[in-house]
């Protein structure tokens, strides 16, 4: 029996029970739309996590001296020629920078705190780290020779200091001796209350190197256009930087990476659970559709329809309704994603969201591959749900059926 005819038959059968099939259609549509929105929310969360991990000074890749991660001191620094430039093509890399990051103690007139002091080149930093995006009260750092200091709002409040005042920085120099120097506060950056604000202070890289008595840097951070260039860029960096560690953001921030991977699995689990919840209704409806048509199937069989064609017809019916609901659900889901394009406000849970690696606005992020996976799962559900009803349809004996 030609497939076209079977399709036509199944299609008309669906319309014989409009109301029942409309309900089924609506249920599947709601589930699919919810899956699309949910999937993009989880992806949005993942995006935030990766962005945070990458922009919070990690970069996609970072070059460190061996041992620096365990003991972040200037003793574990490395030399970099003035004209150094990573051997990564421009169309793969957004930017890169060198930094000096050392533990330090900052003292105001009233308070003392332990921090990480980072010497940066603000021009290079602008393209690649969160420093460009945060609001600064007062002034940002001008250039790599700026000898003022940029503090987090939160840290400044703890220190009870303000823009224009002086703080004293104490840290260990390259020769192992303690150094002390006064820094004027250029500005206060607002990283929306994140832990960064409390623990990172920034100054120009050159004055810091001078204070520490070295020309070395402690890290080179590279921001790529896409994380998929990570492997090749890693190879290029490892080749140039013999003896140094080249780490990707997953290694630098294993907790964020673990969250990221769990979310991957989480999406599929939710898809499967929601689709399973649909399976009961779908099977129910298909079985009823088969049992209502016992005489009809008997007749068709008596007229010479192959058992295989009966099976195909039931499967097509199931796939048809799921396919249409899938299409509708994707349209509605995409609409919902567009509706929430500005993000969902989580500021009431800001601290909790931060702990979970999220920002205070959750912006959904639609990925075509997720929709395809969802589609494949939905079609698989349609086939799975039609298995038993189709078997029931095949078991119908033409003679018995016609006698009813």
């Amino acid at each position, binding site marked *: 029996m030609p497939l076209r005819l079977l399709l036509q038959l199944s299609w008309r059968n669906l319309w014989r029970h409009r109301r*029942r099939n409309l309900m089924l259609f609506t249920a599947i549509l709601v589930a699919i739309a919810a899956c699309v929105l949910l999937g993009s929310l989880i992806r949005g969360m993942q995006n935030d996590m990766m962005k945070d991990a990458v922009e919070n000074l990690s970069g996609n890749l970072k070059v460190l001296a061996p041992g620096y991660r365990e003991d972040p001191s200037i003793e574990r620094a490395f030399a970099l020629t003035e004209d150094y430039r990573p051997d990564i093509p421009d169309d793969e890399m957004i930017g890169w920078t060198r930094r000096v990051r050392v533990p*330090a103690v900052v003292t105001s007139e009233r308070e003392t705190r332990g921090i990480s002091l980072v010497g940066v080149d603000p021009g290079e930093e602008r393209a690649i780290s969160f420093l460009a995006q945060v609001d600064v009260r007062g002034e940002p750092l001008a250039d790599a020779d700026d000898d003022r200091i940029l503090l987090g709002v939160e840290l400044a409040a703890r220190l009870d200091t303000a823009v224009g005042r002086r703080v004293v920085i104490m840290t260990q120099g390259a020769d192992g*001796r303690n150094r002390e120097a006064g820094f004027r506060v250029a500005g206060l950056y607002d990283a929306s209350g994140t832990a960064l604000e409390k623990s990172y202070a920034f100054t120009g890289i050159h004055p810091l190197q001078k204070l520490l008595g070295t020309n070395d840097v402690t890290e080179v951070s590279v921001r790529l256009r896409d994380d998929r260039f990570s492997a090749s860029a890693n190879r290029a960096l490892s080749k140039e930087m013999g003896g140094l560690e080249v780490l990707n953001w997953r290694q630098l921030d*294993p907790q964020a990476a673990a969250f990221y991977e769990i979310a991957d699995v989480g999406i599929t689990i939710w898809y499967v659970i*929601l689709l399973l*919840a649909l399976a009961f209704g779908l099977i*129910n409806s298909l079985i009823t559709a088969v049992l209502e048509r016992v005489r009809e199937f008997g007749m068709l069989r008596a007229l010479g329809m192959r058992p295989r064609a009966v099976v195909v017809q039931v499967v097509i019916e199931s796939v048809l309704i799921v396919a249409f609901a899938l299409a509708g659900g994707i349209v509605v889901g995409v609409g919902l994603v567009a509706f929430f394009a500005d993000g969902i406000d989580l500021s009431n*849970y800001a601290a*909790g969201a931060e*702990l979970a690696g999220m920002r205070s606005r959750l912006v959904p992020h639609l990925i075509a591959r997720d929709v395809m996976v969802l589609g494949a799962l939905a079609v698989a559900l349609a086939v799975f749900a039609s298995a038993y009803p189709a078997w029931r349809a095949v078991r119908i004996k033409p003679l018995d059926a016609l006698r009813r």
Partner: protein
Amino acid sequence: MPRETLAASDTALPTPRLHRAGGLGLSGALAWRNLWRNRLRTTLTAGGIAFAVTLIVAAYSLQGGAMDAMADHATQLLSGHLQIQNPAYADDPSLRCLVPDATAMARALKSVPGVTAVAQRAVGFALVSVGERSYGAQVMGVDPQQEPAVSSLANLVVKGRYIAGPDDALLGSVIARNLDIDVGDEFVLLGSKLDGSVAALSLHVSGIVESGSAELDRTLVQVQLAAFQDEFGLGDQAHMVVARVSDFEHVGATLPAVEAAIAPLGTASVVLPWQRLMPEVAQTMQLKRASSLVMLSLIAVLVTFSIFNSFMMTVFERTREFGMLLAIGMRPAGIIGVLQIEAAWLALLGAGIGLVVGGAVMTATQHVGIPLGQMAGELARRFNLPDRIYPPLNVGAMLAAPLLMLLATQLAALIPALRIRTLAPVDALRVGA
């Protein structure tokens, strides 16, 4: 008592009530039998309900278990279940913001029923130096006798032992490594006293601790409370009085008693429950609850759709039967009643299966525990979870889920059933004839 005697002795019992009682019993039996006229459909619909109930019970038990484990574990590390602090300390954790009469305060707190452990703590920032190396540290003055009852740090000592004497110090593993010192080595602690002059303590490393929190391991130094109070000029003042209560879930209920107990001391101190001490943990719990509520409602809605569909099919198929019943004088309300009872049986059946399955799975899980695995291990560290969680069965969910499904089923059955009101017996009898 024989039946006749009862009937005879209670002549006031009106006959209509007897009828109605008999009617209800009959309807119940009728509904139950109707349900099994389409075995497959009933099984599948009940299966859907069971699926939803199982999922709700499992999800809430798992989540409740994970959350309680997370929160209680987080409180164990340092913060305790509640703390008494100077009202300004939360916003400005500086040396100046003190709780006066800390010893009296601790004694008053200890007397509150339900409070199992109390410890005073003084906290300050200081510089720890060994030779030319210096790092900033969070120094805690703790009472070595009281402290292990409120904080798990004492059990997390990986080398050496907990502090005992006035020149002992416990260091976080990272700060010890950064300073390049080990158990037995000497170091100097430099800070500023309450009056602004220099405070200096010469200490010995008695133990090294690995808390699992990178922040803490990098900054923690614990010393004896009395030594800290002496050197920093605090007298009998501390920064916090930390307490644990017997039951984590009843921290909130203990607060009024605690406030009443410390009121006679006449200080402006505040009592903060763990939710205020660790807002990020409390908020994560809220966020998780909100998101799982959305997901589970969605599943309940989807299952309701399928129940609705199932009843619509049932009502359609039995149009002739309903016409017959109407023709022989049954009221539409009576038929709707039977259908609603069918729906109730269905919900009870599904919910029963769901409770048994969900309960069995979660009881088994509770015994075996869920290993959080390597991937979740990273998360576990972030949230301070133990390696394996033993989620207790959530009794609330076991009550709420069946009720929810009963309600949904009643609603899903009522809409198609209302058609019967407009059914004309003659037309109905002609259907399918």
